[in-house]
């Protein structure tokens, strides 16, 4: 986990330099890497989900429901 790459290439450059066989789009990712990417993705997504419903959206729906505000509402 703490092992570091010795040289900090730009991601694009290093991808092309080191991964010719992968650049053709054939997935060769280990389950570990896939799991880790999935973990990152969900962390990002859930970070927003955990913010709940901003007031503006509840207010918007209730305003429309009560007959004020309409399609032009922004």
């Amino acid at each position, binding site marked *: 986990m703490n092992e570091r790459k010795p040289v900090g290439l730009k991601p694009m450059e290093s991808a092309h330099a080191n991964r010719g066989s992968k650049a053709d789009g054939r997935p060769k990712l280990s389950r570990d890497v896939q799991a880790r990417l999935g973990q990152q993705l969900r962390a990002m997504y859930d970070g*927003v989900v955990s913010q709940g419903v901003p007031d503006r959206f509840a207010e918007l729906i209730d305003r429309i429901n009560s007959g004020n505000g309409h399609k032009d509402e922004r």
Partner: protein
Amino acid sequence: MAMDESVRKAMLGAVPSLRAFAISLCGNVDRADDLVQETLLRAIANINSFQPGTNMSAWLFTILRNHFRSEYRKRRREVEDADGHYAESLKSHPDQLGQVEFREFREALAQLPPDQREALVLVGASGFSYEEAANICGCAVGTIKSRVNRARTRLAELMDIDNVEDFGPDQQTQAVLAGGK
């Protein structure tokens, strides 16, 4: 125009994940919230076309995605705005993953082609099945699968990951990420 309480609840219940999806599409919190608002307005205006008993969330995702495609994608995704603004909007980030790695991940995600990014987010984070994601995107199930696979491979390339030990960039990479673009 008053809507059924169960419909209202289902709509509000979908808002948090609609926002997360919208942010992943357009990379900007304010614009994402506008997108969600426009989605809700469209949904309410077309509520008669919603079939009770079907998945409200998937229906709203479809509306949002189509609206984004027709309106928002004309403008380029503002990647530079995505990180700062987006990071600010997160009250906390998962410490166990590391700040730099998390940032690097978001940068890489932002660089994916839109088709791949939306497929990955729908399946990998929103919790939709391949079939549901295919319905939302209006394409074949096989297309979604292939987009998700290519998205994962591309992310690993962009993050320079061969195996799980590669997570965690060195100082120089951090500098490139911080100053790059």
